[in-house]
């Protein structure tokens, strides 16, 4: 029997550019052409001013650790506890949920406000997830 797998995202027409981006090694956000608001998750209009004139751009991939839990039980399929479920605040402003890699999953190692940078984890040939690791230097 196959190992249980982690939940796989299924893109929609509104989010396809994001998942195309992660596959190409880019974290893509959207910016409103009218009011310059940067937002996430993806949608083809600005949630701040309702303009439909919005652009996709490559984000810096830099941010900091806003908050997290270290999940012990119950564990999601495909995860070995304990593992951190984090929320990262990107330098461009939006926040996103993610996992923190290359870092012990402990309260001591996971310091709030620590600087992070994006990394990419291919789940299969269609979906690559953005995750974060402690920033170098």
């Amino acid at each position, binding site marked *: 029997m196959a190992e249980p797998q982690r939940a796989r995202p299924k893109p929609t027409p509104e989010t396809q550019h994001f998942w195309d981006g992660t596959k190409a090694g880019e974290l893509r956000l959207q910016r409103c052409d009218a009011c310059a608001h940067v937002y996430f998750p993806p949608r083809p209009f600005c949630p701040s001013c309702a303009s439909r004139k919005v652009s996709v751009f490559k984000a810096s991939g830099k941010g900091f650790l806003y*908050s997290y*839990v270290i999940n012990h039980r119950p564990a*999601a399929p495909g995860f070995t506890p304990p593992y951190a479920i984090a929320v990262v605040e990107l330098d461009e402003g939006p926040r996103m949920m993610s996992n923190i890699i290359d870092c012990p999953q402990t309260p001591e190692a996971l310091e709030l406000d620590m600087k992070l940078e994006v990394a990419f984890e291919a789940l299969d040939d269609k979906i690559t997830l953005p995750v974060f690791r402690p920033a170098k230097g």
Partner: protein
Amino acid sequence: MRRNQVAVVGAAETTELGIIPNMSQLQLHADAALNAIADAGLKLSDIDGFATAVETPQQVCHYLGIKPTWVDGTSVGGCSFMLHVRHAAAAIEAGLCKTELITHAESGKSMIGKLPRSTPADSLNGQFEAPYGVYGPPSMFPIPVLRFMKTYGITHEQLASVAVVQREWAAKNPRAMMKDPITVADVLNSRMIAYPFRLLQCCLVTDGGGALILTSADRARDFPRKPVYIMGTGESVETPMVSQMETFNSSRAFKTAGPLAFKEAGIAHKDVDHLMIYDAFAHLPLFGLGDLGFMPHEETGQFIADGNTRPGGKLPLNTNGGGLSYMHSGMYGMYALQESVRQMRGIAPAQVPNAKISVCHGVGGMFAASGTIVFTNER
């Protein structure tokens, strides 16, 4: 909405609470509804307005044999029933119905006839949260806690004291699931669930239900029970994704719904005799005390640790024992409302002497939604 124009005239929980292996979720709805009907001295045929959440109104109405002319299926999580009360008050005042029944039931533990909950892979939650290992409320609801603690200087011991104090209230409630006293050390040594939260800081998982019946305040005088008036109401929603809250330092939905209810009721915080804040997890009373304006968030942890909310304290909070110790079927809001009604009727097992105003504040999802009801027993 004008204050005190609508009243609760029937209120009851299911005959049993806790583990109910001999009843489906739908029958739990009916059990609670029939108990509330009896409490109000009504017949099912007197009901012309109906509201419920998760189960559809048509499902429960058909099962009970109710033929409503006003239906509300608002389903925004555990505070749906606060929103139902608000909508019922508006509908009754507008003349859309005369007597409304609100039911909640959940076979949360025994899982008999419980509707499956799923997160589609192409939903926003399915794309941007589920892949990171969230798995049920314990892995999601506490995500804001560490930021909240850092911003306001809240300690682990203060967050543990929430569970300790509520257990003191539960000890006074014969129907509470967990009644044995606990200490801060017990909480901090209980099994880790999702750091920073341990088992005793997470809600119970139980079976049960509850129902309310509302009618106009003018008609309410003719009912057998002491009427409990709807003095003020508020509601809001924010986001179904906890990661997308505006901030982890407060809840926008709380900060919208709570003040709306206070303003409508025309009350100040010092007027509140009794308070319920939906406690799916131990941080919610802290968010609630701050977001509803009782005190700055910085002071909420110490306020509870100092015993101000325990039996005999100056602000009795979650007097049934809360979701942490009384019961939590999955959508706890109905049980908070039931306790507020009991306190206003003067019949609660841990009755607050001479309580005249009760505030009942609910959360839905992971800070996704909120509803606040101010009750009073004086018109």
